[in-house]
């Protein structure tokens, strides 16, 4: 198991050091600094073995988090734990920075004592932790409160406490998708996938039992065969968002994973998503699709080398969604060779600039409606070099945001039952929003 956990600043100074196992000595702290942080060559693996001690590290801005062990630990678990540790810290004091860590070191030690025991990760849900690890010293808890805390920390529903009350029961669903594309210069899709997340913010009283439905092909097909079920009836509810693509009825989800509140065995058996949500925000589900993706933009590059000292670049972008919808924050990044001496750009729409420090022409368009087209052309002057190596021509990348889900996913319903309290599904105010963003959206040129 994890033998120790260290946090360093960018200089390699230790900010936090907590050792859980006897086999980890103080020299481990230095070993990591010398061999990884100060290493002459950039370390090429997130797992490093130094003198039979294994170091796992992640970096958040310029802070290094390192877990140390001498045993054959579950490596995936260690990284998951490190990410979780970051989440917990962020939930407590915001951004992970040297300043914030130093300001909260006592709190961090307290957290580390609680969420890692003898190197075994324990309950690390912020919701539960915040009930008894506070920065204001000990609250004089009553006996009931104490046992409520312990039962929540260890219990089956460790992510939610009892007795939550809201005057207005409200929930927000965000379908956030990032669409990834790799396209050949000829316009052939080399790979494309959408990785999506359903983020739920809930302000519901009591221990509400929720059921979530979407246009999952498997479920829809099953219903088509089995006739109208209760879900189909519930499908009437007005949650269906306005997708950007055609009238696709259902989508094929390659794979999905759920927040630990979702009953996985039920999903496995019936493909229904039921859960008791944590209070506040949680990422209910992640999913991935690869079929029938709506690619919001198409990039058509044209690069011509004119002699050894000049390049002509022309890039056309086409938007491919309903004309009534608007894409925002559009940015096209056209890489330029390292020996660029000057660039002249002409673009029809938006603003374009050559950024020498980033070796790229950055073309920004604030808004663009669907089924439109725009173009940029640039002349790039090159300094003659005797460097024989050819310019690697990195791909042209794009950023954007569109108000629909490129996967075609639609929320069909989210039903809430709370048998003990007297509010019904109809009393809950529900909001759904779809945002599609570019992930790694690249076209080779």
């Amino acid at each position, binding site marked *: *198991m994890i033998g120790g956990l260290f946090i360093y600043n960018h200089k390699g100074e*230790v900010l*936090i050091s907590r050792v*859980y196992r*006897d086999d980890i000595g*103080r020299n481990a*702290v230095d070993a990591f600094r010398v061999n990884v942080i100060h290493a002459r060559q950039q370390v*090429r693996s*997130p797992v490093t073995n130094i003198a*039979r001690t294994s170091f*796992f*590290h992640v970096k958040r801005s310029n802070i290094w988090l390192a877990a140390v062990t*001498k*045993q*054959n630990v*579950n*490596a*995936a678990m260690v*990284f998951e734990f490190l*990410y979780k540790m970051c989440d917990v810290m962020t939930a407590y004091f915001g951004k992970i920075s040297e300043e914030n860590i130093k300001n909260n*070191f*006592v709190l961090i*030690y*307290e957290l580390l*004592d609680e969420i890692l*025991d*003898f190197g*075994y990760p*324990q*309950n*690390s849900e912020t919701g539960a932790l915040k009930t008894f690890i506070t920065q204001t*010293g*000990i609250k004089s*808890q009553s006996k009931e409160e*104490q*046992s409520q805390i*312990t039962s929540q*920390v*260890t219990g*089956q529903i*460790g992510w939610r406490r009892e007795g939550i009350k809201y005057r207005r029961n409200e929930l927000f669903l965000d379908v956030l998708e990032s669409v*990834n594309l*790799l396209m050949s210069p000829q316009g052939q899709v080399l*790979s494309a*996938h959408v990785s999506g997340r359903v983020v739920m913010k809930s302000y519901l009283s009591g221990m509400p039992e929720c059921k979530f439905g979407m246009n999952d092909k498997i479920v829809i097909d099953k219903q088509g065969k089995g006739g109208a079920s209760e879900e189909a009836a519930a499908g009437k509810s007005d949650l269906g968002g306005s997708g950007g693509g055609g009238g696709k009825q259902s989508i094929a989800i*390659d*794979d999905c*994973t*759920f927040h*630990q509140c979702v009953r*996985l*065995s039920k*999903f*496995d058996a019936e493909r229904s998503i039921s859960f008791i949500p944590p209070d506040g925000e949680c*990422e209910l589900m992640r999913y*991935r699709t690869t079929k029938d993706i709506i690619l919001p933009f198409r990039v058509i590059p044209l690069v011509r080398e004119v002699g050894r000292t000049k390049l002509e670049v022309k890039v056309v972008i086409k938007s491919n969604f309903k004309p009534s919808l608007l894409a925002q924050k559009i940015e096209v990044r056209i890489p330029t060779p390292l020996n660029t001496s000057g660039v002249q750009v002409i673009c029809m729409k938006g603003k374009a600039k050559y950024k020498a420090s980033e070796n790229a022409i950055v073309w920004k368009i604030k808004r663009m409606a669907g089924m439109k087209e725009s173009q940029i052309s640039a002349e790039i002057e090159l300094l003659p070099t005797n460097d024989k*190596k050819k310019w*690697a021509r990195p791909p042209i990348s794009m950023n954007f945001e569109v108000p629909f889900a490129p996967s075609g996913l639609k929320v069909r319903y989210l039903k809430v039952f709370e048998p003990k309290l007297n509010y019904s599904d109809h009393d809950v105010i529900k909001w759904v929003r779809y945002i599609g963003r570019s992930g*790694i959206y690249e076209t*080779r040129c």
Partner: protein
Amino acid sequence: MTDSKYFTTTKKGEIFELKAELNSDKKEKKKEAVKKVIASMTVGKDVSALFPDVVNCMQTDNLELKKLVYLYLMNYAKSQPDMAIMAVNTFVKDCEDPNPLIRALAVRTMGCIRVDKITEYLCEPLRKCLKDEDPYVRKTAAVCVAKLHDINAQLVEDQGFLDTLKDLISDSNPMVVANAVAALSEIAESHPNSNLLDLNPQSINKLLTALNECTEWGQIFILDCLANYTPRDDRESQSICERVTPRLSHANSAVVLSAVKVLMKFMEMLPKDLDYYGTLLKKLAPPLVTLLSAEPELQYVALRNINLIVQKRPEILKHEMKVFFVKYNDPIYVKLEKLDIMIRLASQANIAQVLAELKEYATEVDVDFVRKAVRAIGRCAIKVEQSAERCVSTLLDLIQTKVNYVVQEAIVVIKDIFRKYPNKYESVIATLCENLDSLDEPEARAAMIWIVGEYAERIDNADELLESFLEGFHDESTQVQLQLLTAIVKLFLKKPTETQELVQQVLSLATQDSDNPDLRDRGYIYWRLLSTDPVAAKEVVLAEKPLISEETDLIEPTLLEELICHIGTLASVYHKPPSAFVEGSRGVMHKRLPARTGSGEGTECPDVGNAAGGSAPEAAPSIIPSQGDLLGDLLNLDLPAVLLPLMGAGFGAAPAVMPASLNAPVGGGLGDLFDLGGGVGMPMGAYIPPKTVWLPAMKAKGLEISGTFARRAGVIQMELVLTNKAMSVMTDFAIQFNRNSFGLAPAGPLQVLTPLGPNQTIEVSLPLSTVGPVMKMDPLNNLQVAVKNNIDVFYFSCQYPISMLFVEDGKMERQVFLATWKDIPNDNESQFQIQDCHLNSEAASNKLQGSNIFTIAKRTVEGQDMLYMSIKLSNGIWVLAELKVQAGNPNYTISLKCRAPEVSQCVFQCYEAVLKN
């Protein structure tokens, strides 16, 4: 709320200040002081001096302060065991506290204090906490048993904590179950045979129930524990799989990977024709692909594991090639792993796409990545025959870029392509040869040399090319040297007439001037082969080569099985068994996949992957190293164990191309190896001059060297006595000779294995060969020597008795002797007097024979014994002698005749020395 100020106190005397603050009456001030102490502790300052003062703050109802004090205690208790006892009372009291959070805190901290005296006091509170009414305390106590076991295993057993821990597996609270499982699993690892976990269908059922209810971490503990269980039959195996598969949708990648581990393991037991088996295979792919959208560090762990899974069950991901395409912004460690998997998944169906990708990668910036991409193109050619042509043309395009490392990498893989498809792509050799000069890496040089050697008959200037490499032979790496040796021998066998000199040169470089035993051995083997039976040599050296394997870097099947049992863990990241990187007893136990037993016993499918049975012919592709030891097979040949006569007859069979002078070094060199000495009579020991001081200590910073030369069993030895007369220890001895008249050279390194201490003396004998570089010295038998040690390099010269160079087969046939005697012009005859010698002719003859001076005939003329003798020097020079011994006259007369009269003087000296001793 700015605790950061605590990090900045660096002034002197702060310990005293802190001490005062710790003892302050004000609670706030106390707390502040403890915070400062903890901050100092974090940055590595020693604040152990404050131990009693900090412990005094322990008695408080402020939980935050208490936790800080505990933190301090955990760090320093071990260095102050006596003082730590002061804390015991508080701990024991806290374990009785009405607040479960405080009870748990106390038992958790106590377990972390590794002081024997404290652990004694821990037992009672721990026993209570294990049965506490509050699950939070119980789950903490469960882990505490593992802590205590780590400190004092015997105590845990004696106190019966293990049984209590086992009971906790049936606890009503899922987290208690999970922690108990984790603790038991860890304890069980250090008792491999204890059957501590005692997994049976009932307990498995309990674990599977808890699996649905506990935290993500708990699920990992339980899944990892389940993976150690071996189900009784395929039905049980299936039912466990069915209950584990829902975990594949968990958001936590570690849960997913641990579930994959359980499934991969238990799948082994399922009959392949079962519907469920196919379903399960299909279910495994999507979650594995999803892992690739996790954070990069987890992607790395996932990819390392997928690499194993793809080797074990290629069918799972065979349609998922695209997800392994490299993204421009992937961290390098992800890119490299993806490439590996791409090569493994490459097949005829997807090769076009893969090649297009690889070509793209080969133009990227990162050198390692580009190299690997180029290498991957070569692997594709070997794996998918239909693509070979396109791969080769892609590689040629890349060679045209002239990017140094791309060219080198391309040449290395083209070599493998030649191996796989002989006589198909030789047209590219010309292009390759153009780049000869830019190759500076051993692997690429070796590959190029191999190609030249292999296709020597089609490359007009193969000999020139190889010769150009030969110039710097000694500066090359072993890999290149071996390859060059083989290539030139191949060339010689293919074009014998023009390359005698070259082959001679390389053989002598390999056997005489090299310290590398592999190189020497290979050199000798070739030499013998060539000199014995060139036809056989041809058969051996130009033999058909075994097929090159399609896959590279395949993990050896038993290791792969073990690693599959370790999916998700460090072992699967390193691709090494835990014993390779874990110290002590933990993890040394080797895990294996279960054998398929099956209640239904499907006899109709005997080819089911029963890998664990050990006989898995389908899963055992023969692995042939893709590069390097092409001659490995040569060494397995049964070389005829006969010691062939090295001269004459044996060689006569060889075509006339073999230069006669090859003989001499063979004799000298191989004599060392095969110890020919035994065959030749040696009635008396050879003459060994007494040791003389060659290098006085004065001249060599305290190192005195004296020594002599001897010929023992046909081996010339330099016998050295090294004495350290200095005050410091001498190490790192080495020796070198200057060029000399007879090509004497050390046949091995100077064997001074232990450092030579002051006033110590060590005797070393250094075998010499006579195949070193030759230069005429004056006097002829002068030898200039350099000896190096850790202090300096020293030079001296000494003279060796030429008798050492007299070889054992120096007895000439009578007729030959007569003819030779007549043949040598009289100008070459020299006469010497040996005085004061009181031996009779018989005794003299015997004595001389001991030094390889052979009497061929004896004649008595007028009371004078005329002895006719022959001597052969190691370099093939014959010396003929006529010794006149007159009874009663102590003065002998000796006439020496030799084609090289320069040696006569030395030979005479030898006679004198031998006869007078």
